[in-house]
């Protein structure tokens, strides 16, 4: 039961973060909003890391530079979703984000790109994505 509550809270907080960013950007601008939320998130995460020490910072040398710098993508992610939320609302934005997210993950898994273990495309995943797109079209019309 506690696991379910944590998972629900996780999803709620992801959406809340997006909405908060859209709200903040309304006052101070999108790039400013993206910078400030990530700066305070960074400081908080760093403090927690310094306390729990659950891994080794130095190990980043063993990871490909492309993967280490992947966090930079968040600049475009946050900026795009701020504008999207302002234009098409929260529900449509989250729906479209999830479709693209599951779609791209599936594509990468099926091609084995970026050193992931290659997996076969399966029918249920196609059906799932198809249903999600149907739902978004219904939201949009």
């Amino acid at each position, binding site marked *: 039961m*506690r696991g*379910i509550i*944590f998972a629900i809270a996780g*999803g*709620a*907080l992801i*959406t*809340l*973060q997006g*909405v908060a960013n859209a*709200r903040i950007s309304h*006052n*101070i*601008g999108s*790039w*400013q*909003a993206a910078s400030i939320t*990530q700066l305070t*998130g*960074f*400081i908080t995460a760093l403090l927690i890391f310094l306390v729990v020490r659950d891994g*080794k910072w130095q190990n980043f040398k*063993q*990871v490909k530079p*492309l*993967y*280490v710098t*992947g*966090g*930079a*993508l968040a600049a475009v*992610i946050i*900026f*795009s979703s701020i*504008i*999207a939320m*302002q234009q*098409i*609302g*929260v*529900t*449509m*934005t*989250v*729906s*479209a*984000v*999830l479709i693209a*997210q*599951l*779609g*791209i*993950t599936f594509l*990468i898994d099926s091609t084995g790109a970026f050193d992931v273990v290659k997996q076969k495309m399966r029918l*249920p*995943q196609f059906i799932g994505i198809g249903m*999600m797109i149907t*739902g*978004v079209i219904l939201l*949009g019309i």
Partner: protein
Amino acid sequence: MIVGIILALIAGSLVGLQTIFNNKVNEHMGSWATTTLVLGMGFLASFLIGLFVEGAGMFTLHNMQPWYWFSGMIGVGVVISIVKGVKQLGPTYAISIVLTSQLAFALLFDSLGWFGLEQVPFTFKQLLGVLIIVGGILVFKLSGGTEKNQKQVAKAV
């Protein structure tokens, strides 16, 4: 409308891509070092692009509210919640619930029009749309065959 959808699709694709990159980092560094690194990189990129686009305007924060400084901590709450959820439920069920919850709360925020966003009235059509999307997520996630995929998604957050 089209612009908004395209931007949301770009954001989602990059989230998927970043999730995979973060997993690779996570395998070596653990979840808090990874979270720290990812947010640090995200801040640097946003700040540099902002500086390039807006120049000195990056430093004029009009109507700055005190709570804006703390909004970044929401992301830390996300990591804690999902790590704990996955530990107790396993990645498949935990991530299915996370995605469903994301959508349910999106619908709630739209209908309430909180945070000064434009209110989108709650209609039966909207509910049906969200239910079909949730059905799609469950078919995608719970139909088996992508166990590895789910583990990767789970580890990233």
